[in-house]
């Protein structure tokens, strides 16, 4: 089906970018592996959607698509939460830096 081709093409593009980032050392080896597992998993599910139906029935959800959506939403929330925390920590670090600079440059004329 066309939708399968489109989705797989898009994901392959993502993986391509991932390889680039890994080569330029923008992400660590573990991040590279983790994201690859997620995207390859997504390709498998797109090409063989019946797998999810099988899993869905196992865990008690009727449709495979539903299971995929549930899991995706949980994943997205988790990542969002992690990002919020990360930004928060960065903000705190910036404040600490500003404070140190302010106290260090106390006697300088600005």
């Amino acid at each position, binding site marked *: 089906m066309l939708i399968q081709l489109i989705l797989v093409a898009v994901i392959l593009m993502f993986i391509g970018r991932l390889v680039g980032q890994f080569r330029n050392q923008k992400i660590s080896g573990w991040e590279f592996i983790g994201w690859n597992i997620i995207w390859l998993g997504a390709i498998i599910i797109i090409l063989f959607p019946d797998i999810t139906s099988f899993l869905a029935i196992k865990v008690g959800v009727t449709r495979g698509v539903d299971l995929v959506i549930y899991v995706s939403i949980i994943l997205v929330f988790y990542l969002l939460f992690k990002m*919020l925390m990360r930004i*928060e920590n960065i*903000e*705190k670090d*910036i*404040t600490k830096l*500003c*404070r140190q*600079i*302010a*106290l260090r*440059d*106390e006697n300088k004329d*600005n």
Partner: protein
Amino acid sequence: MKTLVIIPAKDEQRKIERVVKEIVQNGWPVLVVDDGSQDDTALAAKAAKAAVISHPLNRGQGAALKTGIDYAIIHGFSQVVFFDADGQMMAAEIAKVAAPLSDGYEVALGSRFMGQAKSIPRLKLLTLKLALYFTRLNTGLKLSDTHNGFQAWQISALKKINLTQDRQAYASQLLQEISRHKLKFKEVPVTIFYTDYSKGKGQSVFNAFNILWDLIIKK
């Protein structure tokens, strides 16, 4: 007792000089923490004989106060008074606010509802009253005013607490810490002027939602 008046200021070039002068005339040493101002706040404050330190970036009022507290500790002050840069408070009342510290209190909190709030906007009044109930719920402290920036602290008390809120939520955090450490505090009536300038500079009432968000999300 060495007392330092700390004024966090961002883009207060127009008012800061007069505010600082008045405090200096009342005989208090002043530190202005310039919080990443884009204008000449730092110069104006220096011209009025305040010590000035500058955040290279704007980090918020809470962050600026914390920087001021660190400065006070480094320079051996034993008490600090928090004061606003926008001319809402009266320099003549600093002595009154700091007085309880000499009577064994660790913190003195200014209260505009025990004192006088001159021409306070109605929506602001409502928000402040709601904040009172929130504070009571949140900290168990029964106060007549909350989020009043006019406060006096023993450095020894400030050393006990951990001020992590960079923006406006610091005010609630200070109260939480007073409650948590059972600090001995007293409310003092103060006069707060609501001028057109302060209304324009001050935080919008809607910022209350941001404060709540900060309090819930961050610790």
